[in-house]
């Protein structure tokens, strides 16, 4: 049957926020999960200042839900502290974007990317 896309998914898919990535450098961290071969991949990069996230960019390869989730996430993560980032859970995205049951697994890949981002941040902190 025709896949269902919620209005939020359509909006973010049509108008992705903060696509792309930051050049590596001072205060820039990166989290990657998944792969093209797997059919789903996220690359998150963020600029952190003091103890908070200042801005986030994303790249995504995957279905419209995944692209929308990447876009949506870049707005959600701004302002988070490192412990808050580490505590981020895929359910937040699921609720906001109404992922169909059979696609929830792909949100775990997104969560992995967030976790990798938070670990990269931990490595920055001396």
């Amino acid at each position, binding site marked *: *049957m*025709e*896949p*269902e*896309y919620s209005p939020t998914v*359509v909006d973010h*898919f*049509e108008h*992705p926020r903060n*696509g*792309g990535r930051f050049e*590596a450098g001072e205060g820039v961290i*990166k989290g*990657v999960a998944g792969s*093209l*071969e797997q*059919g*789903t*991949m*996220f*690359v998150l990069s963020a600029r952190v200042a003091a103890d908070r996230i200042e801005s986030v960019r*994303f*790249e*995504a*390869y*995957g*279905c*419209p839900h*995944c*692209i929308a989730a*990447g876009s949506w996430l870049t707005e959600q993560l701004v302002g988070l502290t490192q412990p808050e980032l580490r505590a981020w859970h895929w359910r937040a995205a699921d609720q906001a974007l109404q992922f169909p049951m059979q696609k929830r697994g792909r949100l775990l890949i997104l969560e992995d990317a967030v976790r990798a981002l938070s670990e*990269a941040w931990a490595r920055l902190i001396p």
Partner: protein
Amino acid sequence: MSSPAKSAPVIYLDYAATTPVDPRVAEVMIECLRPEGPHGNPSSMGHEPGRRARALVEKARQQVAASIGARPECIVWTSGATESDNLAILGVARFHADRGRHVITARTEHKAVLDAFKQLEKEGFEVTWLKPGVDGIVRPEQVRDALRSDTQLVSLMHVNNETGVIQDVAGVGAICRERGVAFHVDAAQSAGKLPLNVEAMNVDLLSLTAHKSYGPKGVGALYVRRRPPLGLKPLFHGGGQELGLRSGTLPTHQIVGMGEAFEIGERDRESDVARIAVLRERLWQGLTAIGGVELNGHPSERVAGVLNVCFHDVEGESLRFALRELAVSSGSACSSGSDEASYVLRALGRSDQLAQSSIRFSLGRFTTADDVDRAIAIVSREVARLRALTPTADSNGT
């Protein structure tokens, strides 16, 4: 159901799934549906309304027969190519089961053929599934090599519905005829696109359908060689219409529509094909300019209207959703619900991922240069947009 955000009418490039009915065809059908039309039962030969309907059915039989170089009495009306394929394959195999239980077909056939052969497997037949080359073509020698003394039937499609690739059915037909093996061809995608001649192609059974050639959905035909007669068992039983091969009241308006569509299709074939080939070329140039695109299937052994293209570095579902202003398809219409990669493209050696990022554009009689240009603009824009979000290969190398 989500509908496109933009309200521009979609651009129909899915002629291989089904075509609109040609207005000239619709006209003759509509006449049949009117109160003063030929509303009798074509089997009611005892009265004038019945005979009037029968005469139209027989005229249409001649039209369809003429378009494939056959005699009218060899045409059996069916509900479409799915039924024709099954009647041919199950019908011949079951009739001659005691003569041998080996049958041959290819992996890239339409489901109607594949699933009929799978049914034969359940009935104790052994099936050889030929694998085409990466160009989608099954070589006649592959068939020759697969033939055995107990081979009873070979089935090979003329034009593939997903890729548009043309098989050398005449070559295969010659081999089958030489060996006395029945040869069935699914020609659902050929009428009005390629010349068809059952004699020249040495075909014993040929499946046709109206709705891929500007006729109505729900009517088709099976050509069955009558000299020497080829025995086959009907799929269902009843009034004994169509010499007992296909019982059921003949749908006059549908048959009249198919006859007209096939006559027009053959008459206009060369000009239609020439025009569509130009549009297809224009589309292909536009798409290659995007970069990172590849054609699926043989570059020249193909019908004019079909272009199956894979797009690198864009995920399939997102690509299809991004292109929802275009009525195109990935895989066949009947599998359009599922996420599964096309078995046809997989058989041509494409990875799951590239198969899923493939789109079939199919053009037809009513496609305009403007349709093509707008399609190119949309595809270019959307592929670029999605690729801009695609992680590059070096992403892992932090």
